[in-house]
């Protein structure tokens, strides 16, 4: 079974990036329908849909919206999180680049529901050409009466502005993002107060991922109940997965979350198998912050059941033997990949991106990078493995924002599952430098499963 297209519907239609073509393909029908509903009705549809935040944490969107404070006379804001900087994640970019009006339409409906008259798209500054695409789409929407005062006679006013960042992963964290829009350094705030009460400029604010907001249009079109029927269990609707690494067909796929991981990796409708005829060694299924799994635990849970591409199944087994759906950044590593070096690049990333506010994160990410660097250069000691374990353990749960955990989890997972590769590296410093990794037994799920028995 292939893709289920809700968000990416019509993606192959030439010119779908532009208003006229988008409109011809049922574009803005959802917005029209929504403006004839009450904000409360829209909220009910979103709640019924079971939509969960697509930015990483999977928090139910309808519930989040219902927390928005509504004090008299204080403006409220919707802020769309298009910071997309989690390694492995490039789905929001795809959506904005090819079907920008899907997002604009979603913002119109969501802003109407939340009572936001000025909504912002906070986009990472590196997506320079996408900023132009969004600005153009906003202009087109405005020219056609979908933005501005009294939209289509509804009495509702809305402006949407694009606000660029300037290179800082931490600004994807919602409170750092708000600081950044306010023209400050991206230091996460201490919660509470939550943005729903005191957000942008201390006003009640909802921050949602691009994909979450883009899903609101289709939810209104087909109805929350129909949306909830797609998918399985609490993983309702469709999810964009950005697949990358050593696969034949990297790219963005929209799935209904009923596929097995095996099907997703090997079938021609999705990743098309491992590139260059190699075997699968490991995978980070939900962006670099989530635990890495070796092939055997990726394809099957510890109970020996097939693992599926949805929130619950990917998390099955907890961090001991499972992982997370996260942002949907699916990173595949083949048998030749060096887990130690790979983890070093990931730790370097988190050290670079730590805002430096809390010492466990600031110092800890520095240590993780340093130890992994010397290990990957063949100068590691056996005791370094336990040191890594301790350092990551001291970061986890001891920081203001979840970046600390995000830096700790990947390290914990590789020590848990690939400890023998770390040991091998310490004992074979020379070979390690020449990139003769060995240990390809991870790559063979059947053999590895046997071993596990």
């Amino acid at each position, binding site marked *: 079974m292939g893709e289920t297209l809700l968000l990416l519907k019509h993606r192959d239609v030439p010119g779908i990036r532009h208003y006229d073509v988008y409109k011809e393909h049922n574009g803005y029908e959802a917005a029209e329908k929504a403006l004839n509903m009450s904000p409360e009705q829209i909220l009910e549809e979103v709640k019924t849909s079971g939509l969960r935040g697509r930015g990483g944490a999977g928090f139910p969107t309808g519930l989040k919206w219902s927390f928005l404070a509504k004090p008299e006379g204080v403006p409220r804001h919707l802020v769309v999180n298009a910071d997309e*900087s989690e390694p492995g994640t490039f789905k929001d970019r795809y959506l904005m680049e090819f079907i920008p009006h899907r997002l604009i339409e979603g913002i119109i409906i969501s802003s109407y529901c939340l009572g936001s008259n*000025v909504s912002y798209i906070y986009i990472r500054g590196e997506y320079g050409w996408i900023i132009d695409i969004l600005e153009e789409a906003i202009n087109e929407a405005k020219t056609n009466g979908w933005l501005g005062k009294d939209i289509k006679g509804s009495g509702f006013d809305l402006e949407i502005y694009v*606000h660029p960042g300037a290179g800082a*992963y931490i600004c994807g964290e919602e409170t750092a993002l708000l600081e950044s829009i306010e*023209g400050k350094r991206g230091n996460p705030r201490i919660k509470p107060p939550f943005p729903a009460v005191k957000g942008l400029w201390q006003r009640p604010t909802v921050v949602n991922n691009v994909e979450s907001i883009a899903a609101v249009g289709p939810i209104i079109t087909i109805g929350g109940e129909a949306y909830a029927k797609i998918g399985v269990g609490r993983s309702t609707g469709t999810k964009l997965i950005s*697949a990358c*690494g050593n696969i034949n067909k990297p790219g963005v796929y929209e799935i209904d979350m009923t596929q097995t991981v095996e099907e997703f990796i090997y079938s021609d409708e999705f990743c098309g198998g491992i590139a260059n005829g190699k075997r699968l060694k490991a995978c980070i299924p939900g962006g670099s912050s989530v635990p890495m799994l070796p092939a055997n635990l990726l394809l099957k849970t510890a109970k020996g059941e097939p693992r599926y591409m949805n929130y619950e199944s990917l998390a099955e087994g907890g961090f001991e033997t499972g992982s997370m759906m996260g942002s949907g950044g699916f*990173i595949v590593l083949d048998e030749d990949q060096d887990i130690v070096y790979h983890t070093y690049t990931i730790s370097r*990333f988190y050290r670079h991106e730590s805002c430096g506010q809390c010492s466990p994160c600031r110092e800890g990410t520095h240590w993780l990078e340093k130890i992994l660097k010397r290990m990957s250069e063949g100068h590691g000691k056996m005791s370094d493995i336990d040191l890594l374990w301790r350092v990551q353990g001291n970061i986890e749960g001891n920081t203001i924002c979840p970046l600390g955990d995000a830096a700790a989890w990947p390290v914990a997972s590789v020590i848990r599952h690939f400890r023998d590769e770390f040991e091998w590296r310490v004992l074979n410093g020379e070979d390690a430098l020449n990139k003769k990794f060995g240990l390809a037994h991870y790559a063979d799920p059947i053999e590895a499963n046997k071993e596990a028995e």
Partner: protein
Amino acid sequence: MAEVKFSEEAYKKIEELITRYPEGKQKSVLIPALHIAQAESNGWLDVPVMDHLAETLNLEPVEVYEVATFYTMFNLKPVGKHVLEVCQTGPCMVCGSDKIIDHIKEKLNIDVGETTKDGLFTLKPSECLGACGYAPMMMLGKNYKEFLTIEKVDELIEELRKQDQ
């Protein structure tokens, strides 16, 4: 040192951007304005440039410095005309970004973070740019160059050199 001045369009653009934020919250324009200031100043932010921006926006200079030093896209040292920002994070690494970086170093005879003597190229290694499925890749100005190979890098560098003659 000559007094810093931006182009007329730059001031106009900043004025226009300020209207996107509520009364009294104009500081929000700082990051967009820093992008404009950098583009107006050979791709980097010297202290007088930041001071001038502070004055333009009615901010204290330190408010501008503390933001400019936080974000990686702002260059606080001179850079070449073309900044080759090659992603080196995990997903790009497993697709061969190290080879691309090594090749550029050798070809341009510079280390990472350095600029060629003719001032044309700077090699700036970068962390994930949201193009992991199109790896290896680099950012060049407002655009991404994706699925890089050694040959593609060679062609690109030649092309940029030609543009400049």
